[in-house]
């Protein structure tokens, strides 16, 4: 028999898969290219391991960060290596891949839009399944070291727990990994609501 936490994970995963697929559809529409989502996984990640993604805490990366409020309170982070973020900008603004070399305010706002679309579509699907109403905050685009970007997440969770429950998925562009990690970290109260509905 499954315990409560296993049930919660399974339920989050089921909801998450649909949310991710929907997010990928939104992204495809925005980019005018087919974007697939990998099957997302729900994982308990030790806090100390969080900065070790994408080549380690000192690697240059881009984070697109949003929060949702309403019935679902969660943090959403899209993290990708710097050069992949430049490629993503090229796709969004319709330039040949390799055109974007730096991320100025126009490029950052294009990346912010990717965050809006992805998170908005995700929330939309969750809202349909759960009959919840949730809205995303404006996106913050951070260009820095992986550790410093993810410090935004680790700092909010560290006071409560040594582990984080997150939904983690990757977007894939026809034959080519876009290598965008999409993390969703529900807050403790929202997890309780999922638990109540899922069991």
């Amino acid at each position, binding site marked *: 028999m499954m315990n409560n936490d296993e049930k919660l994970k399974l339920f989050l995963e089921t909801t998450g898969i649909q949310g991710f697929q929907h997010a990928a559809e939104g992204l495809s529409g925005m980019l005018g290219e087919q974007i697939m989502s990998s099957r997302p996984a729900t994982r308990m990640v030790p*806090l*100390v391991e*969080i*900065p070790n993604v994408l080549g*380690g*805490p*000192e690697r*240059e990366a881009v984070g697109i*960060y949003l*929060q949702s409020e309403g019935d679902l309170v969660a943090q959403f982070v899209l993290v990708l290596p710097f050069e992949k973020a430049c490629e993503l900008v090229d796709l969004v603004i319709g330039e040949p891949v390799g055109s974007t070399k730096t991320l100025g305010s126009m490029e*950052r706002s294009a990346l912010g839009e990717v965050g809006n679309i992805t998170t908005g579509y995700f929330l939309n699907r969750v809202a349909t399944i759960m009959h919840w109403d949730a809205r995303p*905050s*404006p*996106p*913050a*685009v*951070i*260009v*820095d*070291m*992986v*550790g*410093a*970007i*993810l*410090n*935004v997440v*680790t*700092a*909010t969770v*560290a*006071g*409560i727990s*040594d582990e984080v429950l997150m939904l983690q998925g990757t977007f894939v562009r026809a034959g080519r990994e876009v290598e965008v990690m999409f993390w969703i970290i529900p807050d403790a109260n929202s997890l309780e609501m999922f638990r109540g509905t899922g069991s």
Partner: protein
Amino acid sequence: MADQALPVGLGEIKISSSPGDVLVAYGLGSCVGVGVFDPVSKVAGLLHAVLPQSLNGTEQVPGKFVTTGIPKLLEEMEKAGAMRSRLHVRIAGGANMLSAPGAKQAFNIGERNVQQTRIVLDGLRLRLLAEDVGGTVGRTVRLYVTDGRMTVKALGNQEKALA
């Protein structure tokens, strides 16, 4: 002898007296790094604290919080032969990573980490020798055990010493 980097992860405290060791906290954002060095016993220690203080008062990982991490760091230093009155204390980090326009940030954890660090150091009568705190960029902090030098490096910048 090549330098041996010893990573100091989130909530960790590392102490070394081996020349050639470098204590490194990579990519600090709002976290704060507290580096101490005793120039006589040549013992160095680095704390990588995440938050100012524990919410419920009890904490199994003292290094996670400034209020419990600094006393623990001193305790470990003294165990390794350092003397409190001789310590060179430097701090770095405490940035506000969500400074982008439109970003929602009810409270600035980086700033609170730095404030709390100053309060704790004051309470322990430890003088702060140098600092590189605040701002909006991440930092990698290195403490060289050989000579007690502490350096800070931001993305795209040179490593600079905290005098």
